[in-house]
């Protein structure tokens, strides 16, 4: 069953990665690989993978590569930010602009600095052990970051993690481990994109730990190649009096799956997960989110809106879990979508799992089409059909975008939609 190149060819693949001669790195990779072999790929009956058949993971026969591409095309999101640039999953120091009041260490820094404790910590969390793809990510560990935002740091510009793909038929793994200490405020932006029609597999794992009284906005723009596989896993932990806002704009990829798990472990927190998708061609998009409320007095909101055109498939699975004793939690969830073609498909599964009795939770989902009357009205004023449809789609998605709290970044995302 596990006879594809990612597994059978593992030993060879590993050789082409950097740091193969480092003992600690080899050990971390090998242990993770053994754990991965024991757990296998996500199972067909795994509820989290209900609408995205994991079969493709077994069939992909890509290899890792030690080639470092020199091609780089600026990201579509135009924002004034610090840059961490990756090409084909490899960190490119000379293209990056790093803030000086934040501790940022690439894996190279960690390995060369012999920081074995830190290295183990970020590659071997309980979360990693619980997820096959995170284990695979560690088994192929090569590039990534440890970011530590010290107490009471207010970053004047966002950190933009730019992940550009240029090389065909490769498999790459990136890991970000981000600590945000008490009282800090930071905006993180991720762009994953390619301007080539090439196939590759981007398997990224992000872990974010937010301490007390911090504010974190975490926005992502996904426009991978139409033939690419994009599987990203995000794990966020939020402590008391903090707020975390996640936004995803999902556009590209052949199979693009983004799973976010948020554990709320302190009181008086605010969690927002926002997403919009605009799918064309044959893209299969899977947005899976889970918010776990372990503590009382918190609010979480999930708002997802999207449009599926051509032969695309859009999935939203959102779960709000409220533990026993986590009283006075409000958890609201909404998924609204538009089918723009007869051949597109939308699957939605909102779920509540609540074990406390004094909570306010709701969920809703709707699937519709563009409104004929509105289309007619716009066209009757001379606007051509294509633009009229675009205007209505933009207006539909705007309901999500207008919830973003960083106005400058919001504008950048809006311009990307308008340029489309």
């Amino acid at each position, binding site marked *: 069953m596990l006879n594809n190149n990612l597994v059978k060819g593992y030993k060879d693949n590993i050789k082409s990665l950097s740091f193969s001669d480092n003992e600690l790195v080899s050990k971390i990779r090998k242990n993770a690989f053994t754990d991965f072999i024991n757990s296998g790929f996500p199972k067909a009956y795994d509820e989290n993978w209900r609408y995205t058949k994991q079969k493709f993971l077994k069939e992909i026969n890509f290899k890792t590569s030690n080639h470092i591409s020199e091609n780089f095309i600026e990201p579509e999101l135009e924002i004034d930010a610090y840059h961490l640039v990756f090409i084909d999953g490899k960190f490119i120091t000379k293209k990056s602009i790093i803030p000086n009041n934040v501790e940022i260490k690439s894996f190279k820094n960690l390995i060369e600095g012999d920081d074995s404790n830190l290295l183990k910590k970020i590659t071997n969390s309980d979360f990693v052990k619980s997820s096959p793809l995170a284990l695979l990510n560690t088994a192929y560990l090569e590039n990534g970051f440890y970011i530590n935002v010290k107490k009471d740091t207010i970053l004047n510009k966002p950190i933009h993690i730019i992940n550009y793909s240029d090389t065909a038929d490769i498999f790459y793994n990136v890991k970000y481990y981000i600590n945000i200490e008490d009282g800090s405020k930071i905006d993180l932006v991720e762009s994953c994109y390619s301007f080539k029609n090439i196939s590759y597999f981007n398997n990224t794992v992000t872990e974010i730990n937010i301490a007390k009284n911090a504010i974190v906005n975490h926005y992502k723009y996904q426009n991978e190649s139409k033939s690419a596989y994009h599987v990203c896993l995000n794990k966020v932990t939020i402590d008391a009096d903090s707020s975390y806002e996640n936004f995803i704009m999902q556009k590209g990829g052949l199979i693009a799956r983004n799973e976010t798990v948020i554990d709320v472990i302190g009181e008086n927190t605010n969690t927002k997960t926002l997403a919009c998708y605009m799918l064309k061609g044959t893209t299969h998009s899977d947005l899976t989110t889970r918010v776990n409320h372990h503590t009382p007095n918190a609010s979480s909101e999930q708002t997802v809106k999207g449009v599926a055109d051509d032969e695309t498939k859009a999935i939203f699975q959102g779960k709000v879990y409220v533990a026993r004793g986590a009283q006075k939690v409000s958890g609201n969830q909404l998924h609204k979508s538009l089918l723009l073609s007869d051949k597109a498909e939308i699957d939605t599964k909102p779920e509540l799992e609540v074990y406390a009795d004094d909570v306010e939770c709701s969920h809703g989902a709707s699937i519709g089409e563009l409104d*004929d009357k509105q289309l007619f009205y716009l*066209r*009757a*004023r001379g*606007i051509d*059909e294509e633009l009229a449809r675009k205007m209505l789609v933009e*207006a539909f998605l705007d309901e999500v975008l207008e919830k973003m709290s960083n106005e400058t970044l919001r504008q950048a995302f809006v311009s990307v939609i308008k340029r489309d």
Partner: protein
Amino acid sequence: MSVLLEIDNLHARVDNKEILKGFSLTINEGETHAIMGPNGAGKSTLSYVLAGREGYEITSGTVKFKGKNLLSMSIEERAREGVFLAMQYPVEIPGVATSTFLKHSLNSIRKHQGLEELDTMNFIKVLKQKASELGINQDMIKRPINVGFSGGEKKRVETLQMSILEPSFAILDEADSGLDIDALKVVAGGVNKLRNDKRSMLVITHYQRLLNYIVPDFVHVFADGKIVKSGNKDLALELEEKGYGEFIGNKY
């Protein structure tokens, strides 16, 4: 005087129900025609068929606009050629600002006419000027189209659109419904300002009162899918007095 619009023996159905049953009307450049008729006669259907809305099956008849076959044009082509429909029930579009919408609209039409497109600054100048003439405040223009507008506000904004787009042929489907007395004068004033010897209007209304302000050249009684009587503005007064019974026989 040259012919602008020529509708000949038009038959149209919707959901297998015949609504227009041999409608004919010729409108010359510069003329204003009024159409009055009972509820359900097919007046709004006529206006939609002329504007090109989908869902109507034209079973026979022809419509020529400036000598061209109007029925073969797309909705937006008709608008660009100069057809404007002020709707009985203007549509609400959440998320699309009125000003953005109107800028796209005006520029689409200008482009078609070979005119230069207006940039945002120049467009806003025109928009503000026309809006204040119609007593529409600046906040409203920034709001999404028709969303939360009162009935009267919607009608004012339809009139605003017309004065900005300057169509050669405007259909006003119950432009007076929901208007208070002052607003009626404002809207009628806006319409009259546009009247000239080239531009034609088709005014659909239930109330003779509107025609005191927008004085038509011709009045037609529309019943059961076609025109059953035509006359001058006095016909409207006669209708107001006697009702439709006399014109449509034993139905009333």
